């Protein structure tokens, strides 16, 4: 990998840390400790389930918000501050800038997720007093969440490369919601006829499928995740993120920055 990409990525990571992005970990820690203590007192027999469901959902949603709101500013902020011109005046290609930004934010999200995952496991230890073999599946669920972040970061970057931050946020969030209904969309497409059918099928395959990447409920019930699902989800997320990233590079390469 080009050192220029590594530099851009590490600067993006440093910038996110300087923007106090990792402060969300404090809110997460409060949420987990509060849930671990409170739920045992107000409910029956679901302490462990709540810690897993709440923990993984919070990891997913906190990361999603970070991915969207940092991702949409990755390009536009550099243009507004005019720092982009300084970067591009050096021997840095535009595509390297995009890929570096993507990797920097992805790294931030991975660090954030690792810290939160430690919080989830500590809370789990607090309520269960010991770990079970099935708790290992939580790592798979966390891995799938990171794959979701890769897709959403690439999409945010794509929108950020041609649209305003506000519209980029709206597009990225809307696409996340639609992606959660991807399987329903395919079901709907199969019920239509003629040209509508082809359009619906096209749309259904174009939007990201986030439902396959969500295994929180099943790992909470100690159900294993098949190796095939891990493999295909990994391949799908990487291909989709690469696709969105290529789109971002294509748009950014042709963008008039004057």
């Amino acid at each position, binding site marked *: 990998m080009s050192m220029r990409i590594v530099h851009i990525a590490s600067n993006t990571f440093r910038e996110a840390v300087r923007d106090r992005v990792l402060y969300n970990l404090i809110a997460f820690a409060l949420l987990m400790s509060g849930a671990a203590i409170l739920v045992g007192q*107000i*409910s*029956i027999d*679901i302490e462990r389930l709540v810690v897993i469901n709440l923990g993984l959902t919070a990891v997913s949603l906190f990361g999603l918000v970070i991915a969207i709101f940092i991702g949409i500013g990755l390009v536009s902020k550099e243009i507004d501050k005019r720092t982009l011109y300084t970067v591009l005046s050096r021997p840095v290609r535009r595509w390297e800038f995009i890929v570096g930004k993507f990797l920097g934010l992805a790294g931030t999200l991975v660090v954030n997720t690792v810290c939160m995952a430690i919080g989830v496991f500590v809370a789990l230890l607090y309520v269960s007093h010991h770990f079970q073999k099935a708790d290992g599946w939580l790592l798979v669920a966390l891995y799938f969440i990171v794959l979701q972040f890769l897709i959403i970061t690439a999409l945010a970057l794509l929108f950020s490369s041609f649209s305003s931050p506000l519209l980029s946020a709206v597009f990225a969030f809307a696409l996340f919601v639609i992606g959660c209904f991807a399987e329903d969309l395919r079901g709907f497409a199969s019920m239509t006829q003629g040209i509508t059918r082809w359009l619906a099928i096209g749309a259904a395959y174009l939007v990201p499928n986030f439902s396959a990447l969500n295994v*929180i409920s099943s790992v909470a019930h100690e159900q294993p995740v098949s190796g095939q699902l891990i493999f295909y989800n990994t391949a799908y997320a990487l291909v989709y993120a690469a696709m969105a990233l290529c789109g971002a590079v294509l748009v950014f390469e042709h963008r008039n920055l004057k």
Partner: protein
Amino acid sequence: MKSSTRIMATASIVLVICMMSSVLLLRKLDQLRSGGTAEEVLYISSPTVLKRSSLGYGGLLADVYWTRAVQYFGSKHHNGAQHYELLAPLLEITTALDPQLLVAYEYGANFLAPKPPDGAGMPRRAIELAEYGIRNNPNEWKLYYQLGFIYYTELQDYAAAADAFDRGSRVPNAHPWLKLMAAQMAEHAGDLQTARMLWTTMYQSPQDRSIRANAAAHLRALQVDEDVLVLERLVNIYRDKTGRVPNSFSDLEAAGLLRGTATDPLGRPYRLMPDGHVVVRVPDDLPFLKKGIPPGYVPPIKPKLLPSD
């Protein structure tokens, strides 16, 4: 004092005063709106709509709804309520959001089936819930047990109970006791021994404290029912022999029919009534009795469960 320090101090004091005032005002508002309908409203009653709008995070939403069901039942039960309109919908939403949430079937059926004030008095809804649980978790023998238990205790439908226990006994890793229970139900449905077995299993299961206390109270009630049956039989034997009702249990002892003082499960001596009936002394401490109830006794709205259980 510097101007900025003065502003900081004033702002801090005003902030604290405003916070305290807002808490006091909210408490006053809560008092004014104590009869509010917030608890009695299900804003979204369709499990399908909720599942769709959960965006794949249905597990967490199910936990929230289960906690809400527990809180709803707990507060109503605490107040001796006779109606639990929202309980069944809350449980249906919970289980639709997370069909693998076994705890919602196990406890939920226990909340729904018994007559008020012990439960919602909806045994049919409890059966539907248990059957839905079985459809989604066919290898969980505890759900078949729950189903059989409801048929036995609430509907006295022994054939259906035997069928439920039998279906459960065929599940892999089922408790061997289920097969026995199915046979017992088919042969001796309705006898005290069968009931004792059911409640003992319930008591020994790692359940919630209140459910264990409830099972313990039922076991004590069964013991009293059995004791009263035996003691009244002895009274009848004495009457047949002497032509009169014994004045006290001492007469039974003197006649060699009874050894020692007959006490209830809480250690209090039984009372022999002039007409020959045997009753307990403190019926409030022994809820769910079918026999041994003093004449004219009106049970409290909420059965008393002993904290020692």
